[in-house]
C-alpha cells in the first residue's frame, strides 16, 4: 500500500492518486508504471500517448506552487515514468529489462562472438585494421569500397536481428506460462540481444574507421 502525499489516502501502488489525482512516489516496475500488461510487444505510438498523458498529470511543472511533499512526489513519480518509458520504448533495452525481471542477465559468457556472424566479424576487423595502418598514406579506394559493402551487409544482419527480436517477443506473449517454452525463449532472447550488441559495436567501429580515413 502507498499513501497519497496530498489527501493521505492509502491505496494499491500507483503513481496517480485515484481520489485526488495527485502524484504518488510509488515504486513500480516499468510495465506497472505505465499501466501496461506484462507483454513484450508494444505499439510505440500507444506507448508515447500514455507517456504524454501521464506526464501532463505528474510533471513537477504542474505542481510549482504545491507543498514540498507533493512536489517531491511529483518529481519522483515523473522520474520513474520517464525511466520506464525510455526502457520500454526501445526494443533492445526492453528485452534486457525483461531478462532482469525474469531473474536473468546477459552475462559475460554471452558476450562471446555469436557463431553465425563470427566469420564476418573477423573479416571486418581485419579490414578496419588495414585501413588504420594505411592512414596517412594514400587512401585505398578499393579498401574503402570493400568496407562500405561490408557495412551494408552488417546493416542487413541488424535488420534481420531486429525482426528476430520482434518474433521472439510475439512468441513470449503467446507462451502463456509454459515453463519449457519460456526457457527456450529466454535462451533465444539472450542470443539475439548479444548478436545485436555485437553488430552495433561493429557498425560503430566501421563508421569510425571510415570517418578517420576520410579525414
Amino acid at each position, binding site marked *: 500500500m502507498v499513501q497519497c502525499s496530498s489527501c493521505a489516502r492509502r491505496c494499491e501502488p500507483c503513481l496517480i492518486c485515484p481520489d485526488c489525482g495527485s502524484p504518488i512516489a510509488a515504486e513500480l516496475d516499468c510495465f506497472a508504471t505505465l499501466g501496461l500488461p506484462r507483454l513484450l510487444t508494444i505499439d510505440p505510438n500507444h506507448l508515447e500517448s500514455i507517456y*504524454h498523458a501521464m506526464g501532463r498529470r505528474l*510533471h513537477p*511543472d504542474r505542481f*510549482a*506552487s504545491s507543498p514540498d511533499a507533493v512536489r517531491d512526489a511529483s*518529481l519522483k513519480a515523473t*522520474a520513474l515514468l*520517464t*525511466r520506464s518509458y*525510455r526502457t520500454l520504448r526501445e526494443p533492445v533495452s526492453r528485452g534486457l529489462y525483461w531478462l532482469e525481471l525474469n531473474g536473468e542477465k546477459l552475462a559475460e559468457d554471452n558476450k562471446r562472438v555469436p557463431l553465425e556472424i563470427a566469420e564476418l566479424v573477423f573479416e571486418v576487423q581485419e579490414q578496419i585494421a588495414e585501413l588504420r595502418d594505411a592512414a596517412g598514406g594514400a587512401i585505398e579506394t578499393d579498401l574503402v569500397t570493400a568496407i562500405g559493402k561490408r557495412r551494408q551487409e552488417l546493416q542487413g544482419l541488424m535488420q534481420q536481428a531486429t525482426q528476430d527480436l520482434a518474433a521472439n517477443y510475439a512468441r513470449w506473449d503467446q507462451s502463456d506460462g509454459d515453463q519449457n517454452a519460456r526457457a527456450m525463449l529466454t535462451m533465444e532472447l539472450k542470443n539475439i540481444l548479444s548478436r545485436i550488441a555485437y553488430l552495433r559495436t561493429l557498425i560503430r567501429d566501421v563508421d569510425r574507421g571510415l570517418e578517420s580515413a576520410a579525414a
Partner: protein
Amino acid sequence: MERIFGIDLGTTNSLIAVMDGETPRVIPDPRTGNPLLPSVVALAPDGRMLVGEAAIEAEPHLSVERDGRISAAGFPGGEKGAVVRSVKRYMGLGGDELAAEDRHRYTFTDLSGPVVRFQVGTRVYTPPQISAEILRALKTRAEEALKEEVRRVVITVPAYFNDGQRQATKDAGRLAGLEVMRLVNEPTAASLAYGLERRATGNVAVYDFGGGTFDISILSIKGGIFEVLATNGDTHLGGDDLDRALVDFILEGEPEHSKRDRHVWNSARRVAEDAKKLLSSAPQTEVVLELPGRVIRKTLTRAQFEAMAAGLIERTLQCCRLALKDAGLGAASTTDVDAVVLVGGSTRIPLVRRRVQELFGIEPLCSVDPDLVVAMGAAVQGGVLMGNQRDMLLLDVVPLSLGIETMGGVMERVIHRNTTIPTSVTEMFTTAVDNQTHVDVQVLQGERELARDCRSLARFKLGPIEPQPAGMPRIEVTFLVDANGILNVTARDQRTGREHSVDVKPSYGLGEEEIERMLEEAIDEGEQDLEQRLLITARNDADQILVALRKQLGEHAPLVEAGERLRLEELAGRLEAARAGSDRELVSRLVEELNELSTPFAQRIMESAIRQALEKKSVEELS
C-alpha cells in the same frame, strides 16, 4: 495570483518578460524604452554598483594600469573600480576551467579555487554576486513599470550549461532576492515562444548563437508537448569570439604593447562590434579607430569578415550534426526536421543563415526577434508554472552524461546525455575492505572515458556504515536530476532501510554557508530596497494628493460643505502623520481613502469649471 516572470540572463544583454493574458511581453526600461539591459556591471571601490547603460557610461573613464588590466577611475575619489562584461562566461567555473582569453581580462584574487573571484580595490565579488546585480536591475525595472512585486521567476540558461553553471545561476537568483521556480534551457524557451505563436507540430531545430554561447536543440512538438530529443553546444563560442577575430584584424600591424593595452583593445572591440553589425546589411564598411595621437583606418568587406567567421560557424555546424545524430534524425537535406528557428544576435549574420539553411535543407524561421524570443519563452514557461497554458508541457534533457569514478579511474556512466529529465537512477555501493565505515564517491560530468578527463562535479561520503566484512553492506544511492538539470543525491542502507546522510561537496561553485552569508549581506540591500522604493512611491502619492487637496480647499472653498471639510481635513491629518512614519501599507490605504472621500468634491470642482467655461463661451458668443 502572484505572477511568475521570465528572465533571459544573457552574456551580452538581459531581459525580463511576463505573460499578459495569452501573450508574452518583454518589459522595456520605463525611462528609455529599451527592452535590452546590457549585461554590464560597474563595480565601484566603495561597494556601489552600476548596471546596464549606466555601467557602460562609466566605462570610458577607464584608466589603464601598467599590467594592462582593466580598471575604472570614473568613481569618486579616483579610486579604481572595474567594469565587468560577459560575467556569464565565469558563472560556475573554477579558475582552471576558464577559457584562456577570459583569464586576463580582470583582476582575480586567485585562479586556483573552486570559484573565480573578482578583485576590486579591497572588495571581492563572485560571478553569482555580479549576476545578481543584473537580476536585481531587471526586477526593479519590472516593478517600476508594472507596479507589482517581482519575486518568482524563471531564468534561462544555455542548454549546454553543466551542473555547476546551473547551480551558480540559481545562486544568483537567490542573492537577488528572487525565488527561482525553474531554470529553462534557452533554445527550449525559444521553441516555446514559437510554439505558442504557431501552434507547431513536428521536429524543430533551434539554433541559438548568442553573444557568448552556442546551443543547438532538436525538439519534437506534438499536442502541446515540447520534447527535447537531443542537445549539443559550446559554452565558449559566441559573437564575442567574432568580435575578437575582428579586433585582431583591426590591430594587425600595431606594436605588441599597443595590442596589449586594454584601453586600445576595448575601443577596438567597440568599433569591431559596430562593423560586424553593419556588415549584416552592407557589403563593406570602413573601420575607424581613433587612438591618442593617431587613427587606424581599414576597409573591411563582408567577404573578409566571412572568411574570419567561417571557422567559428563550422564549429556550430559540427554541434548540429552531432545533435541530429543523437536525436536519431538524418543530417543535411533530409526532411526529418520540419522547421529551424534562429535565436541570438549572431544569427543576424547572413553567412550564418546561409550555412544553417544548407545544413538543414530548409529556410530558417526568424519571425520573432532573435534578441527577445528567449525572454518571451521564459515568460511562457512562467505561465505554465502558474497553471495557465495547461496544454503545454516541456520535457527537456540532461546535456552531459553523469557518472561516477570507478576503480582504475574510469568514468562509469549512470545517466547518459540526452536523457529526458527529471530522471533518476539507483546504484548499489558496497565496501572494498573489511570493517570499512565510509565509502567515498566521486561524481563526474562529461563524455570522456577517463575520470580525469571529465569534470568533477562533487564528492560525497557514504556512512557511517556498520563494520562488516567487505562487500556485505549494500547502500543504494539514488542520483536524481530534477527538471532544472541539477543533480540531487540520496542514499539508503538496503539492509536497515535507513536513510544515509549524503554530504555532497561540490567541486566547483559556492558552498551553502557562503551563500547564506552573502544572502545576509544582500538581503538588507535587496529586499529592503523594494520595501523602501515602494514606501517612497507611497509617500510621493501622499504628497501629491495632500498638496492638491489643500490647494483646492483654498481655491474652491464655496464648493465644500462644512462637515465635509472637517472629514477631509481629519483624514488628511492622519495621512500626514502616516507619511512621516514608515508603514507603507497604511500610507497607501489612507491615500486611497482620501482619494475616495474627496471624489465628490473633485467632481463638483470639475462641474463648476465646465459650467464656468460654458458661461464664458456663451458670453463671448453674445458679445
